[in-house]
C-alpha cells in the first residue's frame, strides 16, 4: 500500500470516502465523488460490496464510469435492473447498509440543504438561489442504515442554520430522528477536502475527527460557521495509495468526477468518441 507521490484534493476525498465503504455492504450511491469512491472501493478492498443506483441498477460491472444514477452504465452486466421506487423502497425497507450523498449546506447535526438558499428577501417560491432539490437524498438520509456525506469545506456551506432542511441528519440532536419516525441510522461521517467529521454518540453533534495531511484543526475551525468541537487528538488520514490513484484515473479519464477537464469546455464529437473508447479499454483491465 505505497502512498501515491502526487494527488489532488478530489482524489484524496475519493480515497477517504472509499475506505469507509466496507466489504459485503449494499451501498446506495449518488453522483460525483460518492460514485467514484464506490467504484474504487469495489476494485480494491470491498470486492463483494454491491452498488445500488437509484434508477434501478444493482451490482453493475460496467466498462464505463456511470455519470449519473441512471445512465446506461448503471445496468451494464448488472445483477438486477429494476424500478426507481423499488430501489428506494428497498432502502425504506432497510436493505441498504450505507448511502453516500453530497450536499450544498450542512449544519452541526448533519442535516443537509439541497433545495434553496433564500438570500436577503428570498422566499421558497422566489429564492436568491434555487438548488436541484432532494432527488433521492432525503429518502436515503431518512432510511439507509447509515450515511456518508461528501462536501467541500467552506464557511458558507457549514452553517449555523440551514435555509431549508432537505435531508435529515440528527435533526435537533440524538433521539430526534426516532421521534420524527425515521428508521435509518443517520450520518456516520462527513468527508471534506480538509478532513473527516464524525458525530457525538450522545448529542449527535458533528466534531472534527481526522485531518488530511498538512491541514490543521484551526484551519478547519475557521471554515465552519459554528464553534466546532474537535476530537482530543485528531488522527491524520492516510493519503491515497498509488493503487487507488491508478484506479480512479483509469476509471475517470474524462475527469468527470476528478475535475481534470473543465465542465464547460465543449469537446468536438470525434475527440469525445476517442476518449470514451480509450476509457473502455482501460476499464477492461479492471474488470
Amino acid at each position, binding site marked *: 500500500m505505497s502512498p501515491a507521490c502526487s494527488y489532488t484534493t478530489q482524489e484524496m476525498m475519493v480515497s477517504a470516502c472509499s475506505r469507509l465503504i466496507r466489504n459485503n455492504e449494499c451501498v446506495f450511491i449518488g453522483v460525483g465523488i460518492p460514485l467514484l469512491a464506490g467504484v474504487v472501493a469495489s476494485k480494491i478492498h470491498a470486492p463483494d460490496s454491491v452498488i445500488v443506483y437509484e434508477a434501478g441498477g444493482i451490482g453493475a460491472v460496467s466498462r464505463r464510469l456511470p455519470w449519473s444514477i441512471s445512465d446506461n452504465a448503471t445496468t451494464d452486466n448488472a445483477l438486477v435492473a429494476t424500478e*426507481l421506487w423499488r430501489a428506494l423502497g428497498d432502502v425504506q425497507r432497510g436493505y441498504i447498509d450505507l448511502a453516500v450523498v453530497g450536499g450544498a449546506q450542512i449544519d452541526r447535526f448533519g442535516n443537509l440543504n439541497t433545495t434553496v438558499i433564500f438570500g436577503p428577501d428570498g422566499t421558497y417560491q422566489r429564492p436568491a438561489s434555487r438548488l436541484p432539490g432532494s432527488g433521492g437524498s432525503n429518502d436515503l438520509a*431518512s432510511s439507509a442504515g447509515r450515511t456518508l456525506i461528501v462536501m467541500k469545506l467552506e464557511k458558507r456551506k457549514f452553517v449555523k442554520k440551514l435555509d431549508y432542511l432537505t435531508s435529515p441528519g440528527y435533526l435537533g440532536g440524538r433521539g430526534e430522528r426516532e421521534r420524527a419516525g425515521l428508521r435509518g441510522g443517520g450520518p456516520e461521517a462527513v468527508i471534506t477536502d480538509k478532513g473527516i467529521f464524525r458525530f457525538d454518540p450522545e448529542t449527535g453533534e458533528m466534531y472534527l475527527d481526522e485531518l488530511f495531511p498538512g491541514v490543521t484543526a484551526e484551519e478547519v475551525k475557521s471554515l465552519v460557521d459554528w464553534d466546532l468541537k474537535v476530537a482530543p487528538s485528531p488522527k491524520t488520514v492516510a493519503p491515497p495509495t498509488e493503487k487507488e490513484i491508478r484506479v480512479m484515473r483509469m476509471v475517470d479519464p474524462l475527469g468527470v468526477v476528478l475535475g481534470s477537464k473543465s465542465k464547460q469546455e465543449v469537446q468536438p464529437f470525434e475527440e469525445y468518441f476517442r476518449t470514451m473508447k480509450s476509457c473502455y479499454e482501460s476499464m477492461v483491465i479492471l474488470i
Partner: protein
Amino acid sequence: MNKVTTLPEAVRELVRDGDTVSFGGILSREPVACTYELIRQNKKDLTVIVDSRDETVEHLLGAGLVKKLESAYVWVGVIGSGLHFRRAVEKGIPRRVEVEDYSNLAIGMRFLAGALGVPYMPLRSMMGSDIPEYNPRIKITEDPYGGEKVALVPAANPDVAFIHVQRADKMGNCQIWGMLGNDINIARAARKVVVTCEEIVPTSEIRKIPNMTQIPFYCVDAVVELPFGAHPLGVAGCYWIDTPFRKEWLAASQTHEGFRAWLEEWVLSWETHEEYLRKLGPDRLAGLRKMELDNFRIPKIVGC
C-alpha cells in the same frame, strides 16, 4: 388495435394547454424528442410532475411552457446546473413557475398511487425535514395500526405521459431494457400515454419474452417509432450520451436569449424528428450507437 401514429399527430390530438404532463426515463431514456414537439406546438401552461430530470424539463422551462412544477430534482447531470430551472424560479424568466418539492421516493409513490387508482400512498421519508413544511400536500399522519408516524402523498394522475422505450409493438406493448425509473407506474397512472420507441417490433417478438413487457397495451394511446428519441441522452443497448451536444446547449443557455437562438436552430426550424437527425448527421449517430454497443447490447432472445 393499431395505435401507430406520428409524433406531431399524437401531440396535437392528445395534449391540451393547461394539461398535467409527466415523462418517463430518468436522466437517460427521457423522451426528449417529445419535449421538442411540445415546444414546436407551443403547448402552454403545463403542470409537470417528474422525479429527477434534466433535458425534458429544462427545455420546457426555458421555452416558458411550464406553469407549475412538482418534482424531486431538476439539474443537468454532472455537466452543469439547472440553468432554466434557476432562471424561472429565481427571476421568473421567461415566466414565473410555481414549485412543489418532493423526494424521489415520494414522487415514485405518487405515481404508484396513481397507477393503482388509490388516492394516496404512505411513506417514511420527508418526516422531520422542511419538505412538508413548504408543501401542504404532504401530510404527516399517525398510522391507524401501530400509531407510527408516516408521510402521505397524493396520487399523481397526469393527463398525458410520454414514455420512450427500446421497443414496442403497434398495440403498445412496451419492452424496456436497463433501468426502469418510474415508467411502469407513470404509464398506468396517466390518462393518456404516448409511447415513442427506438423500434416498432412485431407482436410475435414481444410474445417471445412476455416477462419483459413492462407496459401493457391497454395503458397506451399512441405509438411512434422514433429512433434516437432520447438524444442527447442515452438509451441502454441503443446509444450513449452525446456529451458534446449537451455542453453546447448548456453553453448557449447561459442567457435566455442564447437558449432561444439554440431552440430556433435545433427545434423550431423544422417539422420532423428526421430533419433533426439529418442535422446531427449519420456519422455522429453511428458513433453514439457504437459507443453503446461496445459496452452493452440488448440480449438476443431465442424463443422456442
